[in-house]
């Protein structure tokens, strides 16, 4: 390996060397860093000429020069050195680190900026933060790390969708996801809401990325930072930057890890004894002693099949079949390095995750190469290229009997398998094992993302960048359901789909960067960007298979369905940004973006999004800069407008008809009401912030207050059903979000071999609908309401009033309006009489994270706590699971606490089979989802340098990481982070047989050499 690498490097060096003919005397020298280690790739130029060379792998250079000429040594991250050629023909040059370049650099979109002079609110995570959380979904690394950024994986499926809410809910029906920008390439979710592919549940659009490729993630939170992404910035922008080679010798890095997972929580269900007790009682309460007993025994006979329920022969714990012990294998490798002209990074990563739910698996291999080369002093070019292959074994969405999680509703007296080992077909619900063993759903995603770029430096202060990027996302799905799979009646069915999504992005921008009179620093960026998305989806289904051994579409005798869809959209944008600072104290910034998109209605095709911000570094002022306590103080404020262009597919504004088929005759049917005024959601955000550092920045922090007004809120407005169409996309209403964010970073102990740092963040976010159309009429969608004065998508439910102690009836508050305007708090047993009330918020109001890191004598120890408060979750499965034996579904164990005799005080009504006693959708099934979770805890040990050097390594670390090991909550359902993957965005905050997340323990090893 080493030799091969030398070879490659040598090739680069040769390419980079400029031939110099004016050779007078040959000078040989060596360049070393402050520690005496050789520096390869240092630029050595004779001042005033273009003659120069680079140091080789051992830091050695040879250059022809005449006495008296000055050699200039430059190297990124080091102070430039000048040495006058004397009489000697050999010399050694020691370079010093340039401290000014070590300031934290923030990626801001079309450029970077020093954190110190930033006037925006941007949260940054580095590769160290990301590597800590071994999980195939990289967004999980962001959990609890950034103030005001709520990250929730929908549920515990390995490929599950991820919700990131930057500063709370900003949209209702429009996209709620931030814009992901990978190395300057704005990514789309290629699947989006397309129904032609998939299983009705979303997948994570960043699933194909491996965390080891990522250098940093910068989250643009406020309008000033995100406005440069204009019509797509309103939900925040997540800039993902991949790694580049760093100056120095080639660095090899190897990471191996093996993890083991279990669900965070399993609910408790009735066992056979308890089931028989409760359902016998329920049947008797409905049908009387004799008929009830007969009814119950008939039921038990049916459920038990050929087994004897009277002797309690079978007591199936269905959860044991639905869940499995998960495991995760990670292996990744990278080589990187750079000299003054060429930087390279190569990496490969492999992940194999077996989820906590049966048959849910993921295997991913990724590779990346990032190379840049300085062709001449002025011209730099490079390419980032990655490809990946991700294979997922998927299970059905939450609302299907075929999903393992629905098995938890099966009565315990039904055996899961027959004596011959085959799945028991005679169960109350379809037995998912039939699908688990006779069907598969395999998704393979092949993705290539590449960016070729060039940068030309016209003047020292002016450069032009041109980037061309291409993202190819190619997904195939193969679904086969064999003859014995669940509900299979067509001798097998095969489905195959092919989705090809490509996007190309062409951006050009010029950057002017100059300091005038050593006081005025001006940076100006202006450019344009054109993005085009093409998607093509085809699928075909066939039925009637001669044998399960043939399981591709060709094996079916009859082709029964096919789709072919082409989708296109485009964006054309112009943007400009200016930042100015005066003496590093007074900071100003302004930006503007003009976006046009084919997705917007004809009348609203272009929008302009301006932003301004200003900052003042008070600690640079004379009256403060002598303070020993206060080492840094900055005030900043920003205002800007942003858009959300994710407004429902590629043609959301058009009145559309679709082709339909009726007995093989072609028909047309209206599918979407049109709205030619449809446009992006527009949000105006104001942010005030304060950044401080105390005691030489041992204590530093940020405090922000913001107000975010979203106008032209996109809503899929429910129409009057009798009008013949269900919903229309409309820009309606305004929503105001307000919040406070506080970040505190402390270096508690800092000695030679003991450091302890803490990071704490907390944010409070509330939102309120300010206006709605049609005189602020309520918009109700399922169990959610949008009402002026309330939070967006609040729960709207009948209010459960508990149980009548006299007779065990379920009661609901009437909540009708009295003549004086107050609510009638009398109760009723008739759910149709009970009026609904606003009963909760699906989004948390308070989120917090606390991370502590301790480094001591080779050991590293860190842990992160995550907390969320104020959200409620509605259990849509409650009306089946927890309804005092209304129907044969197994019941959650808390139902044993049912009313049995007059005087019983309980919340669980009398068990009455089929009587609907307490089954109406109500607050009975709503629960607060507050929780505190030990998100991750890591203990690592690095061998001492003396030992590693002997082994020829620069670092060897072993570590143990735990994820989600501890959860503190009163939440009664699966897990506060388990939410249904089938409901649309109009109905957030539902759980429906949803899988809890995994808790994982991982053992791993990092080796660098």
């Amino acid at each position, binding site marked *: 390996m080493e030799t091969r690498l030398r070879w490659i490097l040598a090739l680069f060096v040769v390419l980079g060397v400029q031939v110099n003919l004016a050779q007078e005397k040959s000078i040989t020298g060596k360049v070393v860093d402050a520690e005496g280690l050789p520096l390869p790739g240092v630029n050595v130029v004779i001042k005033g000429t273009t003659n120069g060379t680079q140091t080789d792998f051992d830091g050695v250079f040879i250059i022809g020069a005449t006495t008296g000429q000055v050699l200039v040594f430059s190297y990124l991250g080091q102070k430039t050195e000048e040495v006058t050629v004397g009489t000697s023909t050999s010399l050694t040059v020691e370079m010093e680190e340039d401290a000014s370049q070590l300031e934290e650099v923030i990626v801001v979109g079309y450029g970077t900026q020093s954190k110190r002079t930033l006037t925006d609110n941007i949260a940054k995570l580095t590769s160290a933060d990301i590597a800590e959380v071994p999980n195939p979904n990289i967004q999980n690394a962001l959990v609890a790390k950034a103030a005001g950024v709520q990250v929730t994986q929908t549920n515990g499926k390995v490929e599950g969708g991820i919700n990131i809410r930057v500063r709370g809910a900003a949209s209702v029906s429009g996209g709620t996801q931030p814009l992901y920008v990978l190395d300057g390439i704005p990514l789309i979710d290629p699947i989006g809401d397309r129904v032609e592919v998939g299983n009705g549940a979303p997948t994570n659009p960043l699933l194909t990325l491996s965390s080891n490729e990522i250098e940093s993630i910068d989250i643009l939170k406020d309008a000033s930072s995100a406005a440069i992404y204009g019509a797509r910035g309103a939900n925040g922008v997540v800039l993902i930057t991949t790694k580049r080679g760093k100056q120095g010798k080639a660095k090899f890095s190897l990471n191996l890890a093996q993890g083991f997972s279990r669900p965070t929580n399993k609910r408790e269900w009735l066992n056979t004894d308890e089931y028989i007790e409760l359902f016998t009682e329920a049947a008797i309460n409905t049908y009387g002693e004799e008929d009830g007993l007969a009814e119950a025994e008939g039921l038990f006979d049916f459920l038990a099949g050929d087994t004897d329920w009277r002797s309690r022969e079978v007591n199936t714990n269905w959860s044991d079949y639905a869940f499995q012990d998960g495991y995760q294998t990670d292996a990744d490798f990278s080589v990187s390095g750079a000299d003054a002209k060429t930087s390279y990074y190569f990496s490969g990563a492999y992940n194999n995750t077996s989820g906590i739910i049966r048959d849910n698996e993921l295997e991913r291999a990724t590779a990346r190469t990032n190379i840049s080369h300085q062709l001449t002093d002025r011209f730099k070019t490079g390419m980032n290229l990655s490809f990946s292959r991700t294979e997922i074994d998927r299970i059905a969405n939450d609302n299907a009997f075929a999903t393992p999680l629905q098995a938890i509703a099966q009565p315990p007296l039904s055996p899961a398998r027959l004596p011959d080992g085959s799945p028991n*077909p005679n169960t109350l619900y379809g037995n998912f094992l039939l699908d688990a063993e006779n069907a598969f759903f395999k998704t393979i995603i092949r993705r290539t993302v590449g960016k070729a770029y060039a940068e030309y430096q016209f003047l020292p202060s002016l450069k032009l960048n041109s980037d061309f990027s291409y993202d190819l996302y190619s997904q195939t799905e193969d679904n086969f359901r064999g003859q014995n799979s669940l509900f299979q009646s067509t001798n097998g069915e095969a489905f195959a789909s092919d989705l090809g999504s490509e996007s190309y992005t062409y951006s050009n921008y010029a950057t002017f960067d100059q300091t005038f009179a050593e006081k005025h620093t001006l940076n100006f960026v202006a450019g344009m960007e054109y993005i085009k998305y093409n998607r093509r989806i085809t699928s075909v289904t066939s039925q009637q298979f001669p044998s399960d051994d043939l399981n591709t579409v060709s094996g079916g005798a009859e082709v029964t369905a096919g789709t072919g869809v082409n989708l296109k959209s485009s964006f054309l944008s112009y943007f400009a940004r200016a930042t100015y600072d005066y003496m590093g104290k007074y900071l100003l910034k302004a930006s503007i973006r003009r976006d046009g998109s084919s997705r917007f209605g004809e009348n609203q095709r272009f929008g302009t999004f301006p932003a301004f911000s200003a900052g003042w570094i008070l600690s640079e002022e004379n009256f403060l800069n002598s303070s020993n306590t206060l080492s840094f103080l900055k005030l900043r404020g920003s205002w800007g407008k942003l858009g959300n262009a994710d407004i429902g597919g590629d*043609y959301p504004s058009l009145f559309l008809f679709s082709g339909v088929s009726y007995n*093989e005759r072609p028909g047309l049917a209206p599918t979407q009401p049109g709205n030619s005024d449809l446009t992006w959601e527009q949000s105006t955000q104001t942010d005030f912030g304060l950044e401080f550092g105390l005691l030489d920045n041992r204590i530093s922090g940020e405090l922000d207050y913001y107000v975010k007004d979203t106008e032209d809120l996109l809503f899929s407005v429910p129409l009057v059903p009798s009008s013949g169409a269900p919903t229309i996309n409309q820009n309606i209403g305004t929503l105001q979000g307000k919040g406070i964010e506080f970040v505190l970073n402390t270096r508690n102990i800092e000695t030679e071999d003991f450091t302890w740092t803490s990071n704490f963040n907390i944010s409070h976010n509330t939102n309120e609908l300010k206006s709605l159309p049609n005189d602020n009429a309520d918009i109700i969608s399922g169990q959610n309401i949008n009402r002026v004065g309330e939070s967006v998508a609040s729960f709207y439910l009948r209010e459960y009033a508990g149980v009548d102690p006299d007779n065990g009836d379920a009661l609901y508050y009437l909540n009708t309006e009295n003549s004086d305007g107050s609510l009638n708090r009398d109760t009723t047993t008739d759910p149709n009489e009970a009026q609904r009330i606003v009963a909760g918020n699906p989004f948390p109001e308070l989120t917090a994270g606390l991370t502590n890191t301790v480094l001591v004598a080779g050991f590293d120890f860190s842990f992160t706590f995550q907390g969320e408060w104020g959200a409620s979750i509605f259990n849509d499965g409650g009306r*089946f699971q927890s309804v005092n034996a209304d129907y044969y579904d197994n019941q959650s164990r808390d139902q044993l606490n049912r009313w049995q005799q007059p005087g019983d005080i309980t919340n669980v009504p009398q068990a009455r089979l089929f009587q609907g006693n307490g089954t109406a959708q109500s607050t009975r099934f709503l629960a607060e989802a507050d929780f505190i979770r030990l998100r991750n805890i890591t203990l690592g040990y690095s061998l001492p340098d003396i030992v590693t050097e002997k082994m020829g390594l620069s670092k060897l670390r072993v570590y143990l990481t735990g994820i989600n090991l501890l959860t503190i909550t009163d939440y009664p359902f699966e897990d506060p982070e388990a939410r249904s993957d089938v409901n649309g965005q109009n109905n957030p905050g539902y759980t429906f047989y949803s899988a809890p997340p995994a808790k994982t323990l991982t053992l791993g090893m990092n080796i660098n050499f």
Partner: protein
Amino acid sequence: MNLHKLVYAFSGILFLASCEKELEIDPTDNLPGDQAFTSELNISSILVGTYEEAGQPTTYGGNLQMTTDLLGTLDQAFWLGTFLDPRQAFTKSLLVDNGWVEDIWANAYETINQANLVIDNLDIVTSSEAERNRIEGEAKFLRALNYFDLVRNFGAPYETGQPNSQLGVPLRLEGIIEYSLPQPIARSTVGEVYAQIISDATNAYELLPSENSFYADRYAAQALLARIYFQQGEYAAARDAAHDVLENSGHSLATTFASAFNNDVDSPEDIFTFQVTSQTGINNLVTHYASEGDGGRGGDIVVEDAYLELFDDPNDERGSFVYINPDNDRRLTLKYTNQFANVIIFRIAEMHLIRAESNFREGTVVGLEPLLEINALRGRSGAAALDGPLTLELLARERQLELAFEGFLLNDIKRTQGSVGDIPWDDTSLYFPIPQTEMDTNPLMEQNEGYD
């Protein structure tokens, strides 16, 4: 190096200039609405789309029939399935947010709107008067059929000889394409809705050809009229309409009872069906009545003893037209065992039953003497002939023996002012609530009594 710069600058500028027009992108998989009403072919295609809409599983694909049947019995069938919505129908405790009821309402009005769009744009159909009449007739047939089932289920029952000013359903008779405007509407009376239905169905009868492939023909419209008049208690009119169908439609009883069901292609007995193939259409009756092996969920609706006990002759094929699902021992009807069978809406047996009962009630003998007609129908299934005399009870029972699980029971109870167990025919628990979604969005809507 200057060349570099030039190429750079120029390519950038050229690109900027060329791509504004790239923002105009028309869909390739959909037809923009403004082009939909431009050709005769499109109008007839929208009509085909209207059939597709009407045949959806949420209504005529099965849920409409099942919801009324479950609401109409206490003991003949049992909802054993896991779905809550039909269970609420079976336990006569429909909630205002019942999903099946919401879908029936919404789907029926979607169909009605599409039919309205066809009717509104008949001007474009210019190729021939016959073609125009066919299109208008079919659209009116579908509109009448949907309004009839809406008013029967969501409105108070029709009362013969009364003004019928009780609340029916909203009548929307013009197609809506502009949804940016609010679309509130109040309920028309039962009488008004019936008047509209009869006008549409009569119109359809006049306009439609007597043969029309698997689409509605004039006898489908006449069969609808027979059913409407019968429901109204206008027995003379019902008799004559049914007689017309029996005499002139060319349809006749299938040779055996079993062969009347589970047909991929319409049987001679079928007057009108919604078409299902392995590619399109869903027969949701099979989903909920059939075993897994037949494409169902194992038998959500089981046949109870009380139904089988209605039969007076053990040789009556109809009384043994059930099977035991081997997977779970549930007793299921054999009427729905082919998941790709067409969904029968009108078949000849119903016309016989209408004509016989109407003749009996009117004391007339149009076509056939009532007892003979009933016995002929029984004879097809191997049931012994009744000796007579006929009674209304016998006629009502005969309808159940023949038409069970096809969506008739509840409407017969309402027509004959009977009861479901102890629940009288006009109790509001036997009609559907106006869906919560309609109440939430339509300020002019009034809820049915008992649901507010």
